[in-house]
């Protein structure tokens, strides 16, 4: 039987996405300067993404959703699973910094005061052992 302490502290089980009235691409423009329309869907970003197996949308699909203004992209697990490893940004043949686009999508949500991080699922021992850099970066990514 699994106890609460053994479960992952997943922060993105619920629909968190705030309502966005305008076009997604316009909202993102203020947050990043990436040429999202330049994406030609080669899938290179997805091929090297360390979390792609856990994702509901692959990174290239995230870009496609933004282009098509499919706002459900804001409810995907993908944008929270992205660990900003920069592998995709390094390799994109169209020079799109997908890592920055992922951050901008998270920020669209976080700036509406929506956040759900909770570390209560960790045991006291784990709180002692896990490096501090893990906590600070998780909070930065999931709270703002």
């Amino acid at each position, binding site marked *: 039987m699994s106890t609460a302490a053994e479960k*992952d*502290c*997943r*922060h993105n089980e619920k629909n968190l996405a705030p309502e966005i009235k305008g076009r997604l691409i316009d909202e993102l423009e*203020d*947050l*990043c*300067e990436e040429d999202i329309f330049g994406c030609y869907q080669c899938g290179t970003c997805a091929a*090297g993404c*360390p*979390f792609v*197996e*856990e994702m509901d949308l692959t990174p290239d699909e995230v870009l496609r959703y933004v282009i098509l203004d499919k706002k459900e992209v804001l409810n995907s697990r993908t944008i929270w*699973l992205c*660990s*900003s*490893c*920069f*592998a995709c*940004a*390094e390799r994109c043949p169209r020079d799109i910094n997908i*890592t*920055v686009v992922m*951050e*901008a999508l998270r*920020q669209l949500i976080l700036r509406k005061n929506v956040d759900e*991080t909770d*570390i209560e699922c*960790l045991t006291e021992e784990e709180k*002692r*052992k*896990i*490096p*501090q*850099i*893990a*906590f*600070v*970066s*998780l909070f*930065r*990514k*999931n709270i703002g």
Partner: protein
Amino acid sequence: MRFMELLYYPGCTLKTSAKDLEATAIKIAEELGYSFKEMEEWNCCGVVASLTSDDLMHHLAPLRNLIHAEDEGADKIVVLCDMCANTLKQTSLRVKESKDDLETLNSFMDKENDYKGTIEIVHFLEFLRDEVGFAQLKKKVKKPLKGLRVMPYYGCVLLRPREVAIDDAEDPVIMSDLLRALGAEVVDNPFKIECCGSYHTIDEKEATSKRAHRITNFARDRGAEAIMLSCPLCRFNLDARGKEAEKIFEGYEQIPAFYYTQLIAIALDLDIDACGFDSQEVDPLPLLKDKGVVE
């Protein structure tokens, strides 16, 4: 013996869960003729670089550290934590590229001096390669790590983004070169530059264990007996989460993960107590004894 002083930025983790990394680095530096002088004033760097174009606020914490370093009259700081080094370098780059951003950030510094842009951020691995030189280091080796088959592991932040990388982002060699200087055998692995799972060790434990398995297993199959890495978070994930992967993948056994500083300390025959091996989930001592490099 006169030591050359190096201004050292520790960061939070080096003072808590990565004391072994700090202790071994200080010992190595001394053996090579350098002494770490910890910055008199420093704060958390914020760990992850701020990525959105309008977010200057999160560059304040890293910049403050660079100002403190200027105040101490230094032109460079040595950093041990990969995440801190990356964050400090990214802020330094941003203010170098944008005078406007530097001005805005400086205007927020109420008590501090303005940042003049003179500090170079040097990761200790870079320092060993560029200022000491691996050839020089090799001369100091007393106990070559002969027969020890090690997989170098870089992770993300040493190599990406490219602008702040300490080596080629896709084909780094710094760790293999170091391992050879220490007399170890290098076991290469295409996963050496893939993310360890990073902070998802908190909110996605199982996914992080799977990462540890993916990264290690390939090298293990090719005969790797240990991992050499540099970042405290990579170490936790490849050690503790890797150990937990044994429950997910039948027959899988996690191999020990060393900081590069621990392996150097052993090869230089320094006090092994500084290595703090007892804090690791996968005990590296049996392997080291087996190879005859520790008693």
